[in-house]
């Protein structure tokens, strides 16, 4: 049970959230100019790193806001929480323990 710090509501249990998967995915378009292979990669090829992963979460049972989380997939350490419009932060060796 992760504890995630919603940028609007503060630290809350994972059960209040929904993970929306990899963040910063660029949607290709317009459709007439996108080839099948590019579209296929957009639909299906998500990265699955061991280590830091940038993903988007929804505070579904709270403020219903989406935001980004940098989470270490091996330790579940959450290294950063940032807004949808923000660029991915540089992650150093230190991060929040949660």
């Amino acid at each position, binding site marked *: 049970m992760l504890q995630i710090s919603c940028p609007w509501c503060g630290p809350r249990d994972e059960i209040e959230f929904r993970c929306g998967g990899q963040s910063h995915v660029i949607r290709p378009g317009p459709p007439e100019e996108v080839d099948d292979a590019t579209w296929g990669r957009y*639909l299906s090829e998500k990265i699955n790193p061991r280590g830091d992963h940038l993903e988007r979460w929804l505070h579904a049972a709270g403020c219903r806001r989406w935001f980004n989380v940098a989470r270490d997939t091996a330790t579940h350490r959450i290294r950063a929480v940032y807004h949808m419009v923000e660029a991915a932060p540089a992650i150093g060796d230190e991060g929040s323990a*949660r």
Partner: protein
Amino acid sequence: MSQPFRLAAGGLIDRGRPLSFRFEGRDYRGYAGDTLASALLANGVRLVGRSFKYHRPRGILGFGPEESNALMQLGTGARAAPNLRATEIRLHDGLEAKAVNCWPNVRFDVGGVNNLLSRFLAAGFYYKTFMWPHWHVYEGVIRRAAGLGKAPKAADPDRYENRFAHCDVLVVGSGPAGLAAARAAAGTGQRVILAEQDHVLGGRLRWDGGEIDGLAADRWADEAIAALGAMPNVRILPNTAVTGYFDHDALAMIEAVSGDDPAAPAQLPRYRQWQVRAGRVVLAAGAIERPLVFPGNDRPGVMLASAVRHYLARYGVRAGNRAVIFTNNDEAYRTAIAFHAAGGTVAAVVDTRADVDPAVAASVETLGIRLLRGASVVATRGAKALRDVAVRRADGGTLRLACDLLAMSGGSNPNVGLFSQSGGRLAFDEQLTAFRPAQSVQNERSVGAAAGLRTLDEALASGHAAGAGDGAAPRATDAHPAAEITACWRIDAPGKAFVDMQNDVSADDIGLAARESYRSVEHLKRYTTLGMASDQGKTSNVNALAIMAGLTGQGIAETGTTRFRFPFVPVALGAFAGRAHGELLRPLRRLALHDRHVALGAIMEDYGWLRPSAYPRAGETRFEAEQREARAVRDGVGIFDGSPLGKIEVRGPDAARLLDFIYASTMSTLKVGKVRYGLMLNELGVVIDDGVCARLGEDHFLVGASSAGADRIAAWLEEWLQCEFVDHDVLVAPVTTSWSVVTLTGPHARDLLAEAGASFPLGPEAFPHMSFQEGMVAGIEARVMRVSYTGETSYEINVPTGRTAELWDVLMRLGGRYGLTPIGIDAWNLLRLEKGYLHIGADTDGTTTPLNIGWDHVLRRKGDFVGKRSLMLALHRDPARLQFVGLRAEGTEPLPIGAHLVRGKGADRASDGFVTSSAYSPVFGRGVALALVHGGTGRIGETVALEHDGRRLTATIAQPTLYDPEGARLNG
């Protein structure tokens, strides 16, 4: 009745409160404060169970959750509780217990024949021996013979609770280290939870002697507990086992509130499951002694040396008259001394080590106890209780020692289960001959014996430090020195030497696994079932992997351990459910008109909301009600509660832009006051919902979602808006429950609505099909949409939910002369089926695109929308793709939903599509259906064969819209 093994004094029991209990049909006496295990030992009961596979007689091994043998069945009927450990069952008056896994009783057990067959039942036997003609022939018999207690068949009548808690420091265990930690942390004002699995706090301080800050250990414990109990920032939870350590310092605990005490007040839950988020965690869970692995080590009367000491001090029970102590370490000498002091005879201390510290040796020899150095127990005898043991001396000679108790000690394993669950890495400590915590991942610290520390002083110091308090740590002023140990993993002698007593895994089974190349600990575990019993290998895992390491020539550290898993102790399933069962499984949503529907005799069913399926009249079946209701709509007027329909307001300068992207249809061209039907797709091009969208104003839309999709679609819009179109100026507000929907449908709908009074014109020109009006209906603020799911003239009247009943009552009162009929979901579905309207989730599935349901024109739409690029893939345009059509059944009987159209013969036989919706149509007097059929659009008029559950059926493919294809009734 006498308790021959009860001492005259001592122990935390109340000799003034005798209790009666019954075990295996015989009556016994114990005292308040006893566990079932201590009371059985006090009465001289040695044989308490039969083993899982071989039905070997077994006695009590330990004194806590590690107990692998003394498993009990308590209670009867729905309250029967299987596989409870006698060492953890608090004695109460009238308690009745039975041993598990024996028939007809534990003393005479027919299944004992398995022991004679044991050479056929070695590890993995079921893969090898019982294979002809097939394992399943034997499986039933073997599973009955090899089992544990019996689970009750009736529903659980007990109450369970779930509770959340937060704290700065969670201390697991209330022994010396735990108490020191809790005291230190609490003294600085931090919120502390102290969890102890036992009902008595103090752990080892209650039974292992010592002196702290000048006080006897148990007096010091009393004072520490009293001080903690008086602090408002401390919550002390006895009877509470910490069972799991999850991410971000979330822990699960199970508190036995009434437990299995029938005298407990009925309003108390049996168990309460806690979910705790801790700032940090102090793991003071202690250690568990290991058995030694030698032939006959499972005979009743063979116990852990720590258990013998525990029963003496805690319960005033001496577990035998004449004991042999068998050890590879110094600690067991304390058992010899305590047993001797309690008036028992110690026949010998058998130490596997040739060199014993002179002071340790002297501690027993000065009492006249014989010490055999470099010696091993190599056999035990006694049918149902221990009679004697054979000892191989250092010089190779053997001698027999008569005894009724063998106290064994192979060293101790720190309780690293929770630490390991937290993700921490273990290291094998050669000096300790055990795994101990090495590297933390979370905010936890192991202290005391759980950290592999061996002395009371170290335990107190480590606990105090972990508590991070002020002042000096408590000091042990008189305590035992660190116990030295020399590893001894297996006594080399012929005979069955058990490693995992609960699953009957012997040292030879591990040898077999090694020979057959199941050498990794994870393979060893699964091949032999070692450590997979309800005790989760608490006494067996380290012995097993050390034996495997010896066989493979690898080190123990390299061999490693299997992963420790939640829960640390077995948990009653009811505790996980808590109160979430029956009506409370999830919130039931009731309509504003619920009572009105019930009063009309509706069958209410759970569709996410409790909704009327049909309103059968007296003597009417559900089917007859559906048919009557449907006819009433075709001939007169029906009234339908459509309140669960999803309603989402989308507003802002960019609202139309957003909806153009979300819908497969263009919404920006919709005129104010008009309504348009649309499909929503996901990025795969699959239809995820449908509904009508009304334009209330230039920048204001009301998006209709299906009842099931109401929440999902609102979240879907938000996700696109917040994650992709962050520059759009739009607000999305789900208003589903703010508005109730009462739908009038049928040829007389307009007349009735006019009579009820509407503040806007109702004629077909002023208020045509697919348009919207806002105003007053029957004096109530209303939004009315002329849309239809039945094919008849329909008005969906949205009113504020608080005024629904008012509207309903007016319409029902005025509707009599039009034959107004309430209609349920059944008739509603039938009517839309006749009309060929799609029902998302029934006629579509997770692969259905617009190109399967006749919406090929979306491909010609300019601009982008969700899923468009996927629809452009060639596979979706295949002429042989599934296409949505109607079916007319031959004869009057409806086609079964799910029936397949079949083409080809023999090996070429294949599905040609399937029925998605079907019903008997009163209009057509036969079965009508909707189906997805390969190339169906081009096959209208074709007669096709269907199959379902071996039945063969015939139907004709038709247009989906069977009823009023011209739409005259719809638009009228």
